[in-house]
Every structure is written in structure tokens, then in C-alpha cells.
């Protein structure tokens, strides 16, 4: 993906539309788009993780395979006394993106097998497996390890230990997989009591021991409840695990649960309950099971508790679980593709009315007014080129979204605005367009074909890039109809995502397409005249306003230095344009330098570093732990997901939440009010949004008060994306 974005632009560049002399301004503009997309694609170190083409196994030489999986034998100490037990480690160093498997590999794969050839009298115990990760693969889920893992086996020497060096041989069969699987067979030797220093790898093995699950003697029971597999953990378990996140069940036995399905984890009166859709196995044939209760502990480290569970046939069936806490949101939305397309189309239409898009589109209307009086065919052509501009940009965003998601990045709608440099460049673009509209400079006079042709002018290129610009500036406003469609798109295969984005694009382009194609509509447009110049100048002010707002967003993302850098960048660009007005050769040279400096300053904001999310004006800052804690309380919980660049969010907050009546109501009802700020990328918030099938902000969730009799909460309520004080009050009451 990272190559195709700039290439696409280059193609357009070569197209007849742009077949005019290269100017400095054009280069600058081109580098703006190029830079914006390069930043989008290179950040988050996506490059290393993109999917590789399928390579048949034969293409892997022994050397290649050694790079994918390197296995070492480690001893706690390289000397052993008679009758002593030491740890032996089998280390896997795994190439990025590849993985090896746990004891239960999950839906596919196979566990590492090790057989030993030992000197007489030696004994080796079973493999101790560190807590595995969950590795999703399409609709499947595997349990295994990435990067590095050390499997551990205890080795016991006999009382009658012979003198001299002892050689142990391990025959290891491992499977290392990414898109394809490569079996790796190794025979490795380990010498004990030899002439080496005897120190061994105690430190590494101690670290590996810390990754083993903790053994428990918990009294855990399991049973089947309709389509679900249910585990009941005692209060002791709740005490021992303490504050933890992402609690899930990892079965050592196969077929108990549908591995990739979402689990519901909840605290009960007697302890903890986990419900997950059951697996393919008939539980009547299963007796005692073994598994891990895996979680991220208070420090965010993956830990696990190993337990055994026995069937509890007397357990009553569990009714609809009261509180859904998805540990792994893998929702398969029921929105059909055609419906999602329809909603995307409506969403796109609504985008036209958004405060941030409207000024840009007014420019377009202006140029249509001019064109309408030339001839109908040209108007139609402009309409189509504009639509193409909109669609191409939506496809680029969809492409980036798909590429990032396939690389495992946690992103969502508006993600392109989470990068300070993109915000800064967008602010610069708005500012320059504003200067042009206000009459500070006329590009046509200066360079023959310039920026005006791109955006503020009336060439075909202008139509195309007005479309591009409309998409770029539309992103802060996730219109209500778009949320479900985008949430749907994010969970769908690429072709479905593309269709959603196509729907959005067509919706956005539709009104102007209609004006261009239906002459009757053109007649309703006002006649050209001197008013157009005044209107054009007036439009400069919304552009400046928009630039000011973007700089405010930048302040929250990159702090005051980013703002300074961006503002100096704007001044440098303005200086560059001013210098261009003078025809002296030295002025041209200086202006080139000013432009270069300006873009450097704007891009530099990307390196200013993200600032911490600001403290909400009231309520608590959202985190999964805080939410979990709040849900344990007897009070209602209100979660608001917002971002500085989201105008809808700010509007809702100012008109329905941060007002006297709502504050009073929250105080009266003891509402726990949590605010998640998504101005900068935050995987925890992205995860939460995905849990509700969403991919953008705003999102408002209300968890009602628990039923005093059962202590369980009703289903959480998702509020509409446009709030009124009444909606908030109703939801809380």
C-alpha cells in the first residue's frame, strides 16, 4: 500500500490535466499531498508488518528457516551434582510476524514436540509452557508465541552420577507459521559438566520462569448453558488476581470453546464467571479440564493462572448475561452489505452540510456557477471529475485503513487526524487557500497555472482536487449515519470496506453531480456578476477560521512548540508567496528556500510528541480499569468518547453534557462519568469503540444501575451521535 499511494498521485500528475509547465507552487502542493500520505503510511512502523506474498515452502532454504526460527538449548547451570534437579530451557527466537504454538495450538497448527536422548539414569519432566498469546488468523484463533519464548523442562540427575562431561540431545519438532507453515526439525546437544565455565544461563531462565502461569488450587467448575460454555471461579480467584484487564480463558483441552468468539467476563456474588460460545466437542465426554485464566496484570504484563475445573451438572442454566464485557470484540455485525452501502450513501450526503466541509464546497458551487454558463457538457465533465476526486481519496483512505488493519494497527475513523503533521499541513492548506481567496495573491498571474487551478480555480484539476479536499476536511465530522457503516467496514473483508467507502464518496459527491447533470438545477443558480468576487473574498474567512481551529487541535496533540513551529511554517509559506510576486531571480531562489523552510517547520510538528490527553472538565478519564472499577459500583455509568478534532463531539459536550442541568442530574443520580479522549491514537479507546461496532467518535454509552435483587446491570445503552439534554436525561433515568 505504501508504494501505491504516491504512485497513484504520480499517475494523475502525468495525466493531460496537469500537462502544463511545472511550477514551484505545484511542486509545493504535490509535496503536501505526498508528505501527508507518506506520513500516514510510514508512521506506526507499518512497513515491517505488511503481508507478504505466499511463498511455497520449497523457496525457504535451511538458512531462511534458521532466520524464521532459531532454537537454542539453555541450562540453568552447566554443572550438575548427583541427584540434583536443574531447569533446561528450549529457546525459540522467532522472526517478526511469525509464531510457534502452545500446548493447545488452538484452531490450527501444532505444539512444539521435544524428545530427549539422555545419559543413563537421567530424567526429564514435562514441558512447562509460558502463558501464550492469542494469535488471530482470519476467522480462526491460535494460541502461541511470537518474538521469543523459552519452554522449560526440569532435568534430574541420578545419585550415581558418572564422572566427566555428559551429553544430552534434544530432538525438537516445531512448527513456525505466518501465512504459511514451515516445519522445523532440530537435533541439538547440550553438554553438562564439561570444560566450560559452568555458569549457564540462570538469568535468562529465571526470566522465563516468571512467564510461566501460576499454579492454583482453585475450586473451579464448568457447565454448558445453551450455546455457551460457562466457567465459575471462586472468590479466592478474584482476590488472587486483583486488578487485571483483558481477562480470558485459554483452554489446554481442545474443542471446549469457540476460540475466536467473544467471551463475557463478569464478577458474580460467588466469584467470577466466564461465558464463551462453546466449541465443537460434546461436553458429556469431557471430565476434568485444564486451562489458564490469562490477563494483563496491573502493570500491563501478560500473566496467567493455571487451574483445573470439574463439570457441575447441577448448575442452573445462565440466562442472558447482564453485563457484556467483551474481552475480545469480534463482532460480526448483522448489517447487510447493501444496507451498509445505503447508510454510507446517506452519511456521505449529510457530510455536505458539515461546518468544516461547507466552505470548501461553496467554492465548488462558485466554479459550477461559472461553468454552467459556458456549456452543459463541460459542466457534466466537471461533475464527474469532482466525483472521481472524492472517490479516489476515499479509496486511498480505505486502502490505508485496510493496510494498517492487516498490519494489526489499532486505528479508526479520523485516524489520519491523529497525526500532528497532517493537521499542520491541512492548516497550511486552509490558510493558503484563504489567502488566495482574499486576494493576497493570484496564482494565474504569477505562474500561469498554479494552485488556483488546483483548488480555487475552474480547471478540471480544480474539480478533482476540490473532491480530494472535501474528503480530507470531512473527516473530523463523523456524521451520525456513518458510524454504523464505518464500524461495519472496519470488521469486514477489504472488498466490503471498499464498497462502504465508495458509498460515502458517492453520497458526498451526489449534490454537485446532480447540479452538473441536470440543467434545470443549474438554472436555479444565481447569474454570475461582480457579487462573485465579493462572495469569493468572504469565503476566505471561514478558511482562516478552519485553519485557526486546526492549530488549536495541534496544540492539544503536540503542545505549544508544535503550534509555534506550525505558525512559523505558515509565515514562511506566506513569505515564499510574497517573494514570488517579485520577478527578480534572487526572489525566486529565496522563495524556494522559504517554501522548503515552511514545509520543514510544518512537518516538524510530527516529531513534537504527543501530549497527554487533557483532564476532562469534570468526570474521570476513561481507561478499561477505571470502567471496570466503576461497573463494580452500584451507580449508573456514563461513558463519553471524544476527540479535539471531532466537532460533533465538542458540540454535544457543550450543549448536552457540560451544562447546569446535566451536571446536576449526574450529581443527583451519582452517575460515574468517564471521558475517553481519542485526539491522539489510543489503542484502548479504539478497542472499546470496536467493542461497540464503531470506528470513530463520538460514542456515548450508558450502563444502567444494577438490579438490587441480582446485582446485575441491564444491557448498556448506546446513545445517538447527536445528543440533546433530553436524550442524556432519559438515558440516565
Amino acid at each position: 500500500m505504501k508504494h501505491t499511494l504516491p504512485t497513484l498521485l504520480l499517475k494523475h500528475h502525468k495525466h493531460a490535466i496537469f500537462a502544463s509547465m511545472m511550477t514551484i507552487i505545484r511542486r509545493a502542493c504535490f509535496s503536501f499531498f505526498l508528505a501527508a500520505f507518506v506520513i500516514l503510511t510510514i508512521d506506526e512502523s507499518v512497513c515491517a508488518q505488511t503481508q507478504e506474498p505466499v511463498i511455497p515452502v520449497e523457496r525457504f532454504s535451511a538458512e531462511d528457516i534458521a532466520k524464521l526460527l532459531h532454537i537454542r538449548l539453555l541450562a540453568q547451570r552447566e554443572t550438575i551434582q548427583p541427584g540434583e534437579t536443574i531447569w533446561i530451557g528450549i529457546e525459540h527466537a522467532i522472526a517478526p510476524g511469525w509464531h510457534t504454538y502452545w500446548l493447545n495450538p488452538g484452531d490450527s497448527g501444532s505444539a512444539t514436540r521435544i524428545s530427549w536422548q539422555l545419559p543413563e539414569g537421567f530424567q526429564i519432566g514435562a514441558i512447562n509452557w509460558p502463558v501464550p498469546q492469542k494469535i488471530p488468523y482470519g476467522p480462526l484463533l491460535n494460541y502461541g508465541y511470537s518474538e521469543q519464548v523459552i519452554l522449560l523442562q526440569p532435568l534430574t540427575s541420578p545419585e550415581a552420577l558418572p564422572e566427566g562431561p555428559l551429553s544430552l540431545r534434544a530432538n525438537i519438532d516445531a512448527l513456525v507459521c505466518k501465512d504459511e507453515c514451515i516445519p522445523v526439525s532440530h537435533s541439538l546437544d547440550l553438554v553438562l559438566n564439561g570444560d566450560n565455565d559452568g555458569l549457564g544461563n540462570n538469568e535468562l531462565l529465571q526470566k522465563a520462569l516468571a512467564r510461566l502461569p501460576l499454579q492454583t488450587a482453585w475450586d473451579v467448575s464448568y457447565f454448558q448453558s445453551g450455546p455457551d460454555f460457562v466457567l465459575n471461579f471462586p472468590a479466592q480467584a478474584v482476590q488472587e488476581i486483583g486488578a487485571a484487564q483483558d481477562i480470558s480463558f485459554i483452554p489446554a483441552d481442545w474443542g471446549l470453546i469457540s476460540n475466536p468468539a467473544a467471551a463475557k467476563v463478569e464478577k458474580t456474588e460467588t466469584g467470577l464467571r466466564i461465558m464463551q460460545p462453546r466449541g465443537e466437542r460434546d461436553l458429556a465426554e469431557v471430565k476434568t479440564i485444564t486451562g489458564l485464566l490469562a490477563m494483563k496484570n496491573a502493570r500491563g504484563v501478560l500473566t496467567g493462572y493455571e487451574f483445573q475445573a470439574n463439570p457441575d451438572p447441577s448448575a442452573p442454566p445462565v440466562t442472558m448475561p447482564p453485563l457484556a464485557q467483551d474481552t475480545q470484540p469480534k463482532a460480526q455485525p448483522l448489517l447487510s452489505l447493501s444496507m451498509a452501502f445505503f447508510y454510507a450513501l446517506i452519511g456521505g450526503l449529510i457530510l455536505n452540510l458539515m461546518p468544516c466541509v461547507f466552505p470548501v464546497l461553496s467554492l465548488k458551487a462558485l466554479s459550477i456557477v461559472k461553468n454552467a454558463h459556458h456549456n452543459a457538457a463541460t459542466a457534466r465533465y466537471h461533475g464527474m471529475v469532482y466525483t472521481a476526486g472524492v472517490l479516489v481519496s476515499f479509496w486511498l483512505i480505505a486502502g490505508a485503513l485496510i493496510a494498517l488493519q492487516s498490519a494489526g494497527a489499532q486505528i479508526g475513523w479520523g485516524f489520519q487526524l491523529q497525526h500532528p503533521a497532517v493537521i499542520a499541513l491541512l492548516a497550511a492548506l486552509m490558510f493558503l487557500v484563504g489567502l488566495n481567496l482574499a486576494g493576497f495573491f493570484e496564482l494565474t498571474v504569477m505562474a500561469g497555472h498554479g494552485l488556483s487551478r488546483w483548488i480555487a480555480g475552474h480547471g478540471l484539476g480544480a474539480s478533482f482536487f476540490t473532491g480530494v479536499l472535501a474528503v480530507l476536511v470531512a473527516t473530523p465530522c463523523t456524521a451520525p449515519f456513518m458510524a454504523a457503516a464505518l464500524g461495519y467496514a472496519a470488521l469486514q473483508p477489504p472488498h466490503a470496506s471498499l464498497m462502504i467507502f465508495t458509498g460515502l464518496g458517492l453520497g458526498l459527491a451526489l449534490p454537485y453531480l446532480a447540479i452538473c447533470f441536470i440543467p434545470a438545477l443549474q438554472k436555479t443558480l444565481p447569474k454570475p456578476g461582480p457579487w462573485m468576487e465579493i462572495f469569493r473574498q468572504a469565503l476566505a474567512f471561514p478558511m482562516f477560521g478552519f485553519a485557526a481551529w486546526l492549530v488549536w487541535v495541534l496544540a492539544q496533540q503536540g503542545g505549544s512548540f508544535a503550534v509555534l513551529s506550525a505558525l512559523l511554517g505558515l509565515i514562511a509559506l506566506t513569505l515564499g508567496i510574497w517573494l514570488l510576486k517579485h520577478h527578480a531571480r534572487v526572489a525566486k531562489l529565496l522563495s524556494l528556500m522559504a517554501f522548503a523552510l515552511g514545509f520543514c517547520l510544518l512537518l516538524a510538528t510530527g516529531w513534537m510528541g504527543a501530549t497527554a490527553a487533557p483532564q476532562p472538565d469534570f468526570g474521570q478519564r476513561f481507561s478499561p480499569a477505571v470502567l471496570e472499577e466503576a461497573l463494580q459500583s452500584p451507580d449508573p455509568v456514563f461513558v463519553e468518547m471524544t476527540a479535539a478534532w471531532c466537532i460533533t463531539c465538542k458540540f454535544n459536550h457543550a450543549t448536552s453534557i457540560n451544562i447546569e442541568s446535566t451536571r446536576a442530574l449526574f450529581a443527583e443520580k451519582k452517575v460515574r462519568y468517564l471521558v475517553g479522549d481519542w485526539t491522539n491514537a489510543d489503542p484502548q479507546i479504539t478497542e472499546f469503540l470496536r467493542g461497540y461496532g464503531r470506528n470513530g467518535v463520538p460514542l456515548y454509552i450508558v450502563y444502567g444501575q444494577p438490579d438490587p435483587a441480582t446485582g446485575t446491570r441491564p444491557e448498556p445503552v448506546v446513545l445517538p451521535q447527536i445528543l440533546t439534554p433530553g436524550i442524556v436525561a432519559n438515558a440516565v433515568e
Partner: protein
Amino acid sequence: MKRLMMIVALVLFNLPVLAAPEIGQPAPDFTIKDIDGKEFNLADHKGKVIVLEWTNHECPFVRKHYESGNMQKTQQAARDQGVEWVSIVSSAPGRQGHVGADEARKIAQENKAVITTKLLDESGEIGKAYAAQTTPHMFVINKDGVLAYMGAIDDQPSPRAETVEGAQNYVLAALADLSAGKPVTTAQTQPYGCAVKYGE
């Protein structure tokens, strides 16, 4: 707006990603053109025992069973009992194991596979209906169209050819139970092998 809220509510419900079929229940029906362009409808084959074999010729586990001749031996034994054998490729286009009809036929010929037919399930629809996870993943359907066995081909989850010798072949065991008119003793095992390469 009400309609939209309903859809949002629907989005919130989670469905299992792959709903596995149940032993003792009718096997999910399907119709698809086979590699020779003939329509294959599972329901038309009632009255015969059917083995479904998920395959991917580039997967090391599949290769273990074909290169050692174990799969062909199992297929021949099934044919001798009048059992139909259907190989299914659920690899999506561009992913490992995806083949066109000509290549699929060539692979079957080169392997000397003893199969009734081979199906190319590019969309993964059949694979997902059966919750096929691995290659190989085996399903045995009895004469009444009821699922009698699902899981691994044998009890040796390893890609090494040496493990074929002396392995317990679950498919042959299931076929033997069926032909003796008994319920299948081991009706379910954990499948092993490469993940089925479904489209994203």
C-alpha cells in the same frame, strides 16, 4: 432513526465466528460446481457414506499424508467400502493452496488421489459452514446425511512423515464402525495442520 438504532443494537450482538456443525445432526448441505464443471449437491448423495477432506497441496501436513501415501491408502480403503471421497480447497484467491480447476486436477493426478471429486470453495462458504479449521480436516457423513465424525485424520499431530507409521487412523476407524452398523466410537478429535487460508 429508529431503524438505525435497531441496526446499531444488532451490531452489538456477537456471533460466534465459526459455528461448528454437531455430531449426530444433519451435515450442512451445499451445492457447488466441481473441478469438472459438474454440479455437486451434497443432498443428492444420501444413501452413501461421504468423507470430506479439506486440503491445501502446499501445506506441510497435507504433504506428509500425500507424500507418504497415507492419504491415498485411506482413500482406497474408503472406495473399497463404497464410500465417496470429496476433497475441498477453501484457500481464497491469492492465498496458499489456491488453485484453478486444471491445476487441481493435475495435483490430484500427480498424487494418484483416489477421490470421487474435488471442490474449489474459493469463497470459503463451505469451509465456514463446516467450521473447517485446518488442512487436513476430516468429516465423515453417514448414509442418512448425518455428521458421524469430524477432526484429525489420525492421532499424530506432526508434519514428520515418520509419524504416519503406526498412527491410529480416525477416519478408517469411523468408517469401520459405520459399516458394522455401530455408532462411531471416536466421533470427534482435535484437527491439526495448517490453518485454512480463508479470504480476509
